[in-house]
């Protein structure tokens, strides 16, 4: 996505396009159940306001300036939803994330720790989304062509539940190193990292 230094008006136009896209039959396939349809409607309503465009493909980490609001500051649309965390946990094993990042998400020689406050490419929800979707140079695969946006957000939700991610509203503080000393919250509910003493699972 190109860096867009124009005003909020441009973003609104983009979002309206996406809003029409939200009624695209293709998207219904992602949410076939009644619960899913409800979720989709909620998402569409939220998106038409400003951020559904970012549900598809948030800008590259930290690159976008729009009237002072960075996409890195954008919330996870599934923020605070236990179902998203649970789905993300399943995906974490099914998509082999656990093989590199560890079943306890503590990382190893292949991949970084996802439970601490150090984020090489940024730790806000949108930045984590971007790392998953776009891949990273030292071997993180690219998932945007293999996973729908909603499933990537599920993974982001699961990672956030481990406590180390940077809240979107604290994006600037994260950039400036002011969150490093903040203790990591115990993982919420369904994460396997509930036992902080669990040994690492990186595999020779």
């Amino acid at each position, binding site marked *: 996505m190109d860096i867009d230094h124009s005003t909020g008006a441009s973003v609104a136009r983009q979002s309206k396009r996406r809003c029409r896209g939200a009624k695209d039959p293709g998207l219904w396939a992602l949410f076939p159940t009644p619960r899913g349809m409800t979720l989709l409607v909620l998402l569409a309503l939220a998106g038409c306001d400003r951020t559904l465009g970012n549900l598809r493909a948030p800008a590259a980490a930290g690159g976008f300036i729009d009237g002072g609001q960075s996409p890195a500051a954008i919330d996870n649309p599934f923020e605070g939803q236990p179902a998203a965390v649970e789905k993300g946990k399943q995906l974490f094993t099914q*998509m*082999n994330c656990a093989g*590199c990042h560890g*079943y306890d998400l503590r990382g*190893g*020689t*292949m991949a970084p720790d996802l439970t601490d406050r150090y984020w090489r490419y940024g730790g806000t929800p949108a930045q984590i989304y971007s790392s998953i979707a776009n891949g990273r140079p030292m071997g993180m695969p690219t998932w945007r062509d293999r996973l729908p946006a909603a499933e990537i957000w599920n993974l982001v939700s699961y990672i956030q539940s481990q406590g180390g991610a940077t809240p979107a509203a604290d994006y600037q503080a994260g950039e400036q190193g002011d969150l490093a000393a903040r203790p990591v919250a115990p993982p919420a509910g369904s994460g396997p990292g509930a036992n902080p003493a669990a*040994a690492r699972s990186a*595999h020779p």
Partner: protein
Amino acid sequence: MTAGERSPSRRHARSPLLAAVGVGFALSACHAPTTLSGEPAGASTAATQPQPGATGASADLAPNDPPGDWRSQARDYANTRYSPLSQINPANVAHLKMAWTFSDGAQFGHEGAPLVVGGVMYVVTPYPNIAYALDLTKPGAPIKWSFSPNPAPIAIGKACCDAVLRGWAIADGKLIYNLLDDHTVAVNLETGKEVWRTKMDNPETGTTMTMSAAVFGDKVYVGDSGGELGARGWLAALDVKTGKEIWRAYGAGPDDQVKIGGDFKPYYSWMKGKDLGATSWPPDMWKHGGATSWGWVSYDPELNLIYYGTSNPSPRVPVQRPGLNLWSAAMFARDATTGMARWAFQFTPHDQWDYDGVNENVLISIPWHGQTRKALVQFNRNGFAYTIDRETGEVLVAAPFGNENWASGIDMATGQPVVNPAQEPKPGETLKNICPTDLGVKDWQPSAFSPRTGLIYTPVINVCMDLTDHKQSYIAGTPYDGMEMKRHAGPGGNWGAFIAWDPVKGRTVWSIPEQFMVFSGALATASDLVFYGTVDGWLRAVDARTGKVLWSQKLGSGIISPPMTYTGPDGRQYVAVYAGVGGAPMVEDKQAGFPAHGNTLYVFSLDGVSNSSGAGMITTVAAGADNTRMAGHEAPVSGSAHGY
């Protein structure tokens, strides 16, 4: 010029000892023809004879390189890692001190040993695989040249066990080594310029290369890594002059791809049959079956056979791949010229615990029921040390060399393990206390053989695991793995040990328990010293007969590389080892006292004497009356203390 004359001992009143050593050396140098490195040429033959009390095992030390050089990782084709040097001996080894060091700036684990030939030392870093030539003839061993191959960073995230490089080779005027991103490169030894670079595979598929290239004759043997990512395993031969690939033998699949033909004669009947490398898997699973070759290659020049092993099968969830999973967790003897398999042996059929078969095969001859048999010894991941007839693949000895509980023993009629059913994992169920853990009782860290004692000296891992398997889908470039493990120290509480092993009787002779894992290689010398290092950074010298620890020195980081020894241009014996923890031991880096990363090569000599250390060495120039330097020649004179 002699060592005794050039090296006044500055700190110790024990200089008479050093002088005696120096005078003795000088006398031997006077009375016998010497090689370029100053060692008496006849010393090597006499020193390698079996001594009283030896096991009877012996070895062919071809190519019998000059004693003061160390021209290949394992020193010889047989992979003995035995040096004929004896200037450093049990009586003086406690005087070893650091002579000089070299830091290469790379952050990953350092697993290779320096090579020395022609007064130059050659090292290659872990990723980014920069090569350095150090001029040993000049004080400070300055960098003569460096070569940066710029491997692709994507490979870092595909290397299961750190972005390491386990060694490099020298042949035909070239330094030859693998890059993490699946290229093999050759560099002109004199100039440091690239001669050839061959693409061997694609890191996007999860395949990397971490092993040391091995050169025998006119061929370079290289293999891949990636058994944890469903890579397709292979070993290839390249032409040493051009890098052109001559043949490639896959680790699994139909016979023509595994290079099994009419000459193939496995000793045991359960390995005889057509296309077993495909039929011993569910359909097509051999295509992502692992069986990579990332370890060591040894060579018998009389039989013209190379010996090497294959990794675990993929995925690491055995219920997904019923069958023997040939030819994973196995070893091959292949014709070194054509690559055709002569025999094979699978150590761990249908491996369920990640017990690769890639460890070094040390080639020895043993007395066996009144005859001499050409054999090899492999300390396998699965905890059994095998002595195998290397002409036929018959298992002569198979005995545990550490703690294991997954098998009650080896059935000598078939060579197969008798598996303990309680230790077979089922997805979703946690099995407690399987010994050894995936790292095995020994991993790739290589052992050393002494022809004087007939013993093999080896690091040992004493770690067990609680294991939970998770079923896996194959997604290219991602782990095809599924083992969730919590590891703990095995019986006794020590994470590692260093032992002496009798390969004829199949028993441990002595053992040194270590708090941390022992992941260094071993070095044996003609003065009956053995060297090894620990993950927490201790380098130790040990009496080869008794196991008594004679000297210990703490280094700046953990030691996961093999120590080596050479004779410098000054005629002095040095011991060198990299200290830079990383690699597989990182799975326990939360252990209290675990060291930080490092990237320093340490070089030791008696009393630390060398052309890179000592009093003076350069000249101070007087300043002029107005505190400016005098006009004229102001270049410092270096090396003056040692008369070069």
